[in-house]
């Protein structure tokens, strides 16, 4: 059963993968493209978009190989690059008012240059001498009241935040509403385990008891956690036994009938 391997697969995946793709380190597809384009070690004005498209498509397929959840915008970019690639490789037959492959490639190259320029600008900004770090204001200011004026200590941020608070109260009422979670709960898992174990006289992999039809993502991870928690609960109350033959090895459960198997 395909599911059987999931427990160990998910636990091992990061270590087993030869290169770790840390998607969290990226700020989105364009950022990935920028990082990849640096691998070409050329001026961004000389970048080969065709090569870049290939690098990106390889990145996406590697990510899916190691079972990494890619947000949809990464996949949209992949589809767009595949399209761009075809436009660049095939004779242009696009309509008049549609950008040509070359134009699209040039626009992408520009976008990369512009983002790189802004990343560098941000770094240069932070490298500057900064108030309160490298230079300092008057440490003991003397305050004068000019013609008796009162100084009101309210910032634009305070004002906007106040308005945001009002709107938020209106949207959510005066009380905090916690939206129902779509997570798979321990109660659900308990119910499912109970129902299924009766038909399972022998040792069976715990992963077989995961609810079907789960897509990857938070819900499937919560199902994994909840099912495991439910199995522990049932073991505690003497309904099942649990067995694991080694670290990260599959977990097996077995129903206990009337206290004995």
């Amino acid at each position, binding site marked *: 059963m395909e599911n059987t391997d999931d427990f160990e697969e998910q636990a091992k995946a990061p270590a087993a993968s030869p290169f770790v793709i840390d998607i969290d380190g990226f700020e989105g597809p364009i950022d990935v493209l920028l990082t990849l384009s640096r691998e070409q070690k050329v001026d961004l004005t000389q970048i080969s978009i065709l090569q870049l498209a290939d690098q990106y498509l390889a990145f996406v397929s590697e990510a899916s190989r190691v079972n990494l*959840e890619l*947000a*949809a*915008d990464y996949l949209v970019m992949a589809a767009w690059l595949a399209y761009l690639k075809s436009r660049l490789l095939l004779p242009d037959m696009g309509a008049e008012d549609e950008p040509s492959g070359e134009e699209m490639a040039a626009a992408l190259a520009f976008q990369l240059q512009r983002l790189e320029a802004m990343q560098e600008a941000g770094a240069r900004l932070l490298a500057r001498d900064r108030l309160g770090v490298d230079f*300092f*204001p*008057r*440490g*003991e200011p*003397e*305050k*004068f*009241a*000019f*013609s*008796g*004026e*009162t*100084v*009101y*200590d*309210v*910032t*634009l941020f*305070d*004002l*906007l*935040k*106040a*308005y*945001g*608070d*009002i*709107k*938020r*109260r*209106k*949207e*959510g009422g*005066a009380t*905090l509403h*916690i*939206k129902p*979670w*779509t*997570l798979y709960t321990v109660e659900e898992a308990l119910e499912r385990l109970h129902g299924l174990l009766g038909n399972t006289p022998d040792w069976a992999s715990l992963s077989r008891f995961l609810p079907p039809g789960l897509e990857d*993502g*938070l819900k499937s991870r919560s199902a994994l956690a909840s099912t495991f928690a439910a199995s522990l609960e049932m073991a505690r109350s003497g309904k099942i036994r649990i067995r694991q033959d080694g670290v990260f090895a599959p977990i097996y459960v077995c129903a206990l009938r009337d206290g004995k198997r």
Partner: protein
Amino acid sequence: MSKLNKQHLRLLEAVLFATDAPLPEKALANRLPEDADLKALLSALKSHYAERGVHLDKAGKAWAFRTAPDLGQQLSMAPEVKRKLGRATVETLAIIAYHQPVTRAEIEDIRGVGVSKGTLDVLLEAGWIRPRGRRKTPGRPMTWGVTDGFLDHFGLESAGDLPGVADLKAAGLLDSRAAIDIHREYADAAEPEEAEEETSDLLDDPLDPGGG
């Protein structure tokens, strides 16, 4: 006066300027290189400032820059009155800015809480709101709007420059969701910004750009 190390003098000047309390000579000495001649430096600095708008004064054993006493008159050196506004006041101000011209009843309706007369008084006193004429409805209630003084204080050119609700939302100022939701949002960062549509009713808020 012996030739003084100019770097030492600059350093002493900066230290005295930036510290938040008068410093005793011992503390000053600690902040200067060991070979610095503190006494000579202090005396040089004191005489440099003797004629200026700021003096270097010694009070007891501690040194500090102080406004020249003769300028006190012109600076009317009463301590500045700094005033924080309460939450109700800031909210009322925000509503007036966003919804002007707006009546008190409308403000109360938007806030969902009563608005005391004192709140409007504080804003009037600050010079941030002004009457904007009477509404042509029964009772002819007075409407309120913001002033140039308000725009000035908050660095705005017009009340219409205030970010709309969609912008506030994007800026995270309308966000009250629990952490798990935010996590979920990252997980399926697919959808760009459902915010837009959801708040469209708020977008037609009476942001009156003309302000007038």
